[in-house]
């Protein structure tokens, strides 16, 4: 599993301030920590960016490249910032992200071809987020075909089905199941494409102390279905252990849960019980509530 380290993102106030004030240390520390923790890419999420776009982007990219050899994922909706970021990268970067929206097809996708980089393409279209597996597939096939026409091969495309919070009343669990299904059939539909997800969105809205558990178990489940990469927190040691093959028994337990096997909870450790209960919620077998571990 390729892990794109998510920790440099402007949603965090400290990062936002550090970027505005060009405080290199805060940014570089986070880049180093993620590198040492085993991330494969460093994501630079700068948000929409309103002013001094190019200059800030260049500064950020070179600041991070001073302390890490990892390739970067340039994460912005602003095509000017994107181009400045891609231009400044020493290693082959990841354009994060394009979509099936007209504006994205016109302004983002051509940049992937121009800078010969990998590109995340989400299932989003002008009509919004396709909710079902079929509509997601239909939309991504259109956008990938368009990308192919621009000269971007399937191998450079990382498809993003867009993960939504599992806690969304009534629908969240269906969303979670749809993404699992989507990842499972993606390889058959678009041979050669890779895939990625913004993992932590699955636990958005959930009490903070419970979020990592959902992220970890969902990543293992998606991984089993063929997920290639995830934008996630490499500083979560347990998450990294799970995806780097250091906890094979626990991974196997989550797989068994996915297969609907009868599992004797009394024979398991507390952590394993939590894995099983969480997997059941994420596969839609048990109704979600914030108290899912308590019942």
């Amino acid at each position, binding site marked *: 599993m390729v892990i794109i380290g998510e920790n440099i993102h402007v949603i965090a106030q400290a990062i936002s301030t550090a970027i505005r004030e060009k405080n290199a240390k805060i940014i570089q520390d986070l880049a180093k920590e993620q590198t040492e923790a085993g991330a494969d890419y460093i994501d630079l999420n700068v948000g929409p960016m309103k002013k001094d776009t190019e200059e800030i982007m260049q500064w950020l990219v070179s600041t991070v490249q001073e302390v890490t050899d990892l390739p970067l994922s340039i994460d912005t909706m602003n095509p000017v910032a994107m181009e400045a970021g891609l231009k400044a990268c020493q290693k082959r970067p990841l354009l994060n992200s394009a979509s099936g929206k007209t504006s994205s097809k016109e302004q983002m996708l051509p940049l992937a071809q121009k800078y010969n980089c990998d590109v995340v393409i989400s299932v989003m279209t002008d009509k919004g987020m396709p909710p079902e597996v079929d509509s997601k597939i239909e939309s991504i096939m259109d956008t990938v075909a368009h990308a192919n026409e621009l000269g971007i091969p399937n191998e450079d495309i990382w498809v993003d089905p867009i993960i939504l919070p599992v806690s969304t009343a009534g629908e*969240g669990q269906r969303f979670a199941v749809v993404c699992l299904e989507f990842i499972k059939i993606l390889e058959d539909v678009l041979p050669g494409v890779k895939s990625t997800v913004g993992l932590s969105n699955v636990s958005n809205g959930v009490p903070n102390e419970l979020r990592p558990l959902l992220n970890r178990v969902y990543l293992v489940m998606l991984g089993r279905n063929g997920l290639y990469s995830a934008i996630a927190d490499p500083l979560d040691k347990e998450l990294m252990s799970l995806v780097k093959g250091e906890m094979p028994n626990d991974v196997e337990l989550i797989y068994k849960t996915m297969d609907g096997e009868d599992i004797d909870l009394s024979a398991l450790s507390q952590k394993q019980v939590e894995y099983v209960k969480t997997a059941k919620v994420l596969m839609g077998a*048990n*109704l*979600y*509530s914030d108290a899912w571990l*308590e*019942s």
Partner: protein
Amino acid sequence: MEYKAPVEAYTGVVREITIGKGNKSLKIGGENILPLHFFDEGSNPNPAKFALEILDMKPEDWPAHAVEPFKDVISDPISWAKKCQGFAVDAVSLFLVSTDPAVKNAPADKAAALAKEVGEAIDVPLIVYGSGDEKKDVEVLSKVAEACDGMNLLIGPVLKENYEAVGKAILDHGHTAIAQSPLDINLLKELNVKLSKFFPPDRIVIDPLSSALGYGMEYSYSLIERVKQIGIMTKDSMTMMPIIANLGAECWKTKQAKENKEQGLLWEGITALSLLLAGANILVLRHPETLSLIKETMEVK
């Protein structure tokens, strides 16, 4: 080839709950089929029950045509409760609206004494709803539970914010709880999970909040339907409780119901029938003529 209709059998069973004591008791829930799926394997031993609402004070915002059936008793909750029995109700639901700090902030002791008097005066089980003020209800409902010790009233709303205190009082004095959450199945389950840690789940009734026709009824409908499906089809222990649809007040708040009587009866009637179809086990209505309208409709074959 002869056609054979498929017959489903499910593993979940809604808990059968008794409200009231002795010859003043009734059972709700107990079904292991989806609402009205009598063609499937299983049964519903306790068809839907109906309660009429009474208030602990003279209503201030009811249209004349809603007051009319009770106009001689509207200022006296005990006579009002007795009069409800003349309309063949299965239960009476007393709303302690006057205790609301935003209404009269009436003292909890007085409300508790009234609940006891009403409960003793009628021959059907009593449901008691506090004002819904999460803080005041702790005091009011605890006092009600204590004053009516052993009468097995159905008491609520037990909310996420006060379930520990209110739940304990209801439990200690031998009553049944109404667990209420705001139109959200995840929150509904969470409350049941938390309450069940110290409160027996076979003494919990779910109030998912019932909205009126044209004012969000479809949300209540979908939610009730889903609670039943998840309980009966997937055997989720924390949704296998009977459901109370407290809809009278919501319906009579609408412009349409206030405008004229027939419209009001239909508004309340359609809402009640819809939530009945969704799977409600006990329904709280305001107007006795709505009750007869529904009973008539249900008897049409």
